[in-house]
């Protein structure tokens, strides 16, 4: 079995306490097991022999006394423990194995098979558990084997749903897709990728079943359905109950010990399972107010941080940031992932995650230091004077309250009596239809939700807006609309805006001033035009150098191209919903409608379009993962099949490479699937890593993917794609998840591989500026069709289709 690397647990004291709880459970269980395995040999009497007078009180010879027929109770309890624990553990093993196999099979097969299996599981689970077990045991007779069989028969259903849900997620994961594209069989993917990832979930399920089995066995035996020839803790209590031992002194030595032992073994299991399943969530947010110092000087600043230092435990996220935001200005806070920009922004409202703490410095707002305000003063300020537009409005709206009420609440809590009217007016201002007032968040589109979030922020007429990546995850055209709206509203109200983002081209056009954050430090600030030309800090220079502008001269100009490596002619793909889907009322979807496109060796063709335009389907058809419903597609002259001459690089290297794999294993997987020898694989893997300018020594090959940075992982993903010497590379937005400063570097390595290998590259992206510079030709897709197609410069300078024009406008705005 592969060793499992759990996702790195957050370094927190309570996490350790939880692991302590788990350890205590393991020790407890091990002690009990040792006791019942070894114990019976240490007691000089067999459990089923009459060795003393009936109902004898405890004595030195019989520490727990005797039962009604003169059997030693201590011997009985120790022997009985074997039965009780064995029933629990054997049942758990068998039932978990069945559940896991079924969950994976069901998730993998999907469709009608899955629906029927899950309906069956639901039906069995809806039966009242104990009456079912009772009636089964009664018919099949009282024996330990029957008990185990009956418990397995009923308990296997419990983990199936949860395991299947996880297996479904794993099945949809990019690394599963990647393995499929390499030609990996179902068995290979299920056992090498899904099962190891599922294992951390299987453990708590095992524990839960063992827990239920031990309790149920005791209940069954207590009801007289136990094996009359085998003592268990439950049967001992059955006899104690039948002789009403609990009404006499005998309860201390006859009733108490077996029950305590059942409870102890079950609690041991519960502790083990609890530590695994528990996820810590935020508690209260209010940070400890610090005593404020007097503000150094009076200025016209709306907001000012002075030497602000914030840390998560020992790690400093923001160190000594002093930033002044003038009244009415829009300032962009720029930084890459982990730069501390969100922490800084949330600190202004003192809404950091609970683990974060302001260590030093102040946040001046007028004469107040926000870092030192009392909770009530802070509350009256939030929303009323400084408001937040959160990241990902998807999760930011409360799912159980109508959106109108959520907007109105923001005004009402600050004493506005006309909150409802205000909410209606704001909805009109952010262009939400009036009849959506009573709609719930799930009934809105992503863009509409973000509009609600803006309305909430404006409801109590604040002076300052903090917008934390307000357009992340939205379609390009929607992003532009939201940013336009935000700009218009804040301008009309004269608001001060702090806009947090990683999108340098966008913020350069929107903000009057930029503040650049790197590793928690403010490295430079200034007007975008000035920074673009005369930045002093190397990080700022690198950032601006990596921006691809639509109006700059084309960066990559290539010469002739060779043979055709990809040809699609009138290619159509329709996704059928399948029988199960059709029963639910789903319709077939035309993902590609008569698409024609060629890519030649040594050529880079850009495929540009919004989400859902069919870009990815085209790539999957070229891999042979989806079958055309019309027209034809060939790769290097052959119909495509997984493991063939096309290879894919996915968008997100965090998802396309399974983190628990070793570097050598991950890169060599296409060759292992193709059946190459271990030594040949090793040679090829090293060569591919070297080509991607990654280390290729033994130590690096043995490292886990999870220990690498995002940039390294994407290089690794490209190495994996190149290791089987493909003719065609399908690159699905390979730079979009990377930080700006890493993008140029990755494109350069990709270009080098193209040049030396004569690769044809189909480059999927939503970024028209990037496509213009990196691609020789561009095809624009909308709703499954190619609507515009031509040389990269021609598409951008003289767009033929209105959709291309609107994409260009979004890229320039």
């Amino acid at each position, binding site marked *: 079995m592969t060793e499992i690397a759990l996702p790195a647990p957050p370094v*927190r004291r*309570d996490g350790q*306490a939880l692991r302590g709880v788990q350890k205590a459970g393991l020790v407890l269980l091990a002690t009990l097991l040792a006791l019942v395995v070894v114990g019976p040999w240490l007691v000089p009497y067999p459990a089923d022999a009459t060795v003393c007078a009936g109902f004898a009180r405890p004595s030195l010879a019989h520490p727990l006394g005797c039962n009604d027929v003169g059997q030693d109770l201590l011997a009985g309890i120790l022997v009985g423990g074997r039965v009780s624990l064995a029933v629990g553990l054997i049942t758990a093993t068998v039932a978990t194995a069945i559940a896991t196999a079924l969950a994976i099979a069901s998730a993998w097969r999907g469709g009608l098979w899955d629906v029927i299996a899950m*309906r069956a599981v639901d*039906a069995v689970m*809806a*039966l*009242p558990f*104990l*009456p*079912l077990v*009772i*009636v*089964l045991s009664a*018919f*099949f007779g009282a024996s330990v084997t029957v008990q185990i069989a009956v418990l397995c028969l009923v308990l296997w259903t419990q983990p199936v749903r949860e395991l299947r849900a996880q297996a479904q997620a794993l099945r949809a994961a990019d690394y599963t897709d990647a393995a499929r594209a390499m030609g990996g069989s179902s068995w290979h993917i299920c056992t090498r990728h899904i099962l190891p990832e599922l294992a951390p979930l299987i453990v708590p399920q095992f524990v839960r079943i063992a827990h239920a089995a031990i*309790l149920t066995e*005791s*209940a069954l035996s*207590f*009801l*007289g359905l136990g094996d009359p020839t085998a003592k268990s803790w439950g049967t001992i*209590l059955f006899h*104690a*109950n039948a002789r009403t031992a*609990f*009404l006499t002194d005998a*309860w201390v030595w006859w*009733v108490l010990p077996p*029950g305590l032992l*059942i409870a102890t073994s079950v609690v041991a299991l*519960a*502790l083990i399972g609890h530590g695994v399943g528990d*996820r*810590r*969530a935020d*508690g*209260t*947010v*209010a940070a400890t107010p610090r005593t404020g110092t007097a503000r150094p000087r009076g200025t016209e600043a709306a907001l000012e941080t002075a030497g602000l230092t914030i840390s998560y435990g020992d790690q400093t996220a923001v160190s000594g940031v002093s930033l002044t935001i003038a009244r009415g200005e829009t300032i962009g806070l720029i930084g890459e992932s982990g730069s501390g920009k969100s922490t800084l922004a949330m600190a202004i409202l003192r809404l950091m995650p609970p683990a974060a703490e302001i260590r030093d410095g102040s946040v001046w707002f007028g004469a107040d230091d926000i870092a030192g305000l009392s*909770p009530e003063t802070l*509350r009256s300020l*939030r*929303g*009323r004077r400084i408001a937040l537009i959160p990241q990902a409005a998807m*999760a*930011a*709206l*409360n*799912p*159980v*309250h*109508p959106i109108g009420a959520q907007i109105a*609440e*923001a005004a009402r*809590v600050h004493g506005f009596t006309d909150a409802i009217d205000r909410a209606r007016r704001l909805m009109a201002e952010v262009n939400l239809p009036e009849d959506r007032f009573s709609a719930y968040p*799930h009934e809105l589109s992503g863009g509409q939700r973000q509009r609600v979030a803006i309305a*909430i922020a404006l*409801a*109590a007429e604040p002076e300052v807006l903090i917008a934390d990546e307000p357009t992340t995850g939205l379609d390009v055209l929607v992003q532009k609309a939201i940013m336009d709206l935000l700009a218009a509203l804040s301008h009309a109200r004269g608001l001060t805006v702090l806009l947090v983002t990683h999108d340098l081209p966008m913020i350069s056009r929107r903000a009057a001033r930029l503040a650049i954050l790197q590793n928690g430090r403010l490295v430079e600030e200034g007007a975008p035009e000035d920074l673009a030309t005369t930045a002093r800090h190397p990080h700022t220079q690198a950032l601006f150098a990596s921006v691809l502008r639509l109006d700059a001269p084309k960066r990559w100009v290539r010469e002739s191209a060779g043979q055709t490596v990809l040809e699609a002619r009138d290619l159509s793909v329709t996704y059928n919903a399948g029988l199960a889907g059709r029963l639910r009322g789903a319709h077939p979807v035309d993902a590609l409608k008569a698409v024609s496109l060629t890519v030649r060796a040594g050529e880079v063709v850009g495929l540009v379009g919004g989400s859902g335009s069919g870009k990815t389907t085209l790539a999957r058809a070229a891999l042979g993962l989806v079958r055309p419903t019309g027209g034809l597609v060939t790769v290097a002259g052959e119909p495509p099949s997984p493991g063939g001459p096309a290879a894919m690089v996915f968008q997100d290297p965090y998802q396309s490479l399974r983190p628990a794999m070793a570097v050598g294993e991950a890169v060599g997987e296409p060759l292992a699937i193709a059946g190459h020898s271990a030594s040949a694989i090793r040679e090829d893997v090293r060569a591919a890593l070297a080509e991607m300018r990654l280390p290729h020594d033994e130590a690096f090959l043995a490292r886990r993917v999870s220990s690498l940075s995002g940039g390294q992982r994407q290089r690794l993903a490209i190495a994996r794609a190149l290791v089987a010497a493909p003719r065609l590379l399908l690159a699905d937005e390979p730079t979009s998840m990377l930080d700006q400063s890493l993008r140029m570097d990755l494109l350069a390595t990709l270009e080098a591989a193209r040049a030396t290998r004569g690769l044809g590259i189909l480059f999927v992206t939503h970024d028209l500026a990037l496509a213009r510079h990196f691609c020789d030709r561009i095809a624009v897709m909308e709703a499954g069709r190619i609507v515009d197609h031509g040389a990269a410069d021609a598409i951008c300078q003289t767009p033929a289709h209105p959709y291309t024009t609107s994409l260009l406008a979004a890229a320039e705005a």
Partner: protein
Amino acid sequence: MVWLRVVAAYAAVLALALTLNFALPRLAPGDPLGFLLPEDVLAEMSAEEEARVLAEFGLDKPVAAQFADYVSGVFAGDLGVSLRYGAPVWEVVAGRLPWTLLLMGWALALSALLGTALGVMAARRQGEMRDIGTTVLVLAIGSAPVFWVAMLLITLFSARLGWLPSFGAVPLMAVPGSWGYVAGVAERLILPVTALTIAQTAGVWLTARSAMAVALSRDYITVARAKGVPERAVFWRHALRNAALPIYTNVSIGLGGLLGGALVVETVFSWPGIGQLVVQGVEARDYNLLQGVFLVATLSVVAANLLADLTYPLIDPRVRR
């Protein structure tokens, strides 16, 4: 249309229970007559008599016809005759069911209230040492077998202290409906309800604690705080309102477990509900009675879960149509 699918799903559960009940005597090892008649009677029967009995019970017909007879019989209220009581199973079980429901009703209400209140409060102190201590304590309480808890309650409150009766549901001398009768029943309810509530509360507590913790960690809570919503309203209107959904679902799923607990507790207190029938059925090898209890138990749990499912859209707008 959603409710139609829900009803269909529960109809499938009932069909499964009926099929199981029908199949068990035919699949289990041994003679089907052995599940119908006492052993001593069977031993003395001649071959003709056996054939006559088989015909009388319709056991000589094809299996499909037998199944049709069985299902139509069940829908007409015919669950066979109990050997132990010599009366129709349906009558025996129906007479006992209200007592079990009385026990379950109290335990359900108390455990749901207590578990939610304590669990939600515990969620405020996530991760502190005290919280971990409480969690371990609750897990320990939830791990004790319910019948054992019941025995200890009797030992303490009946045998030692003599405060409460430990046997039956009805005072012997009181006239049904009189004040003394009601008071007597109430007195006898306390211990079994306590045992059942103790066992059931742990599960609700754990659900409530984690549901509340998850709700409090959501982005919408941060947004509510950023709006300036007072902490009290953040807790009730935003967090608890969302945490209520999994708590409601979990309590309704737990009904089956509660019923199982009630069956076991009843045997300790000689409570005259259907749990006592189980023990008598096992002792007397009264298979008809056991099957009847199983079917009625399934029917009750399915009806309750159906009700819970159909009312769920009232509290969760996302599944409304």
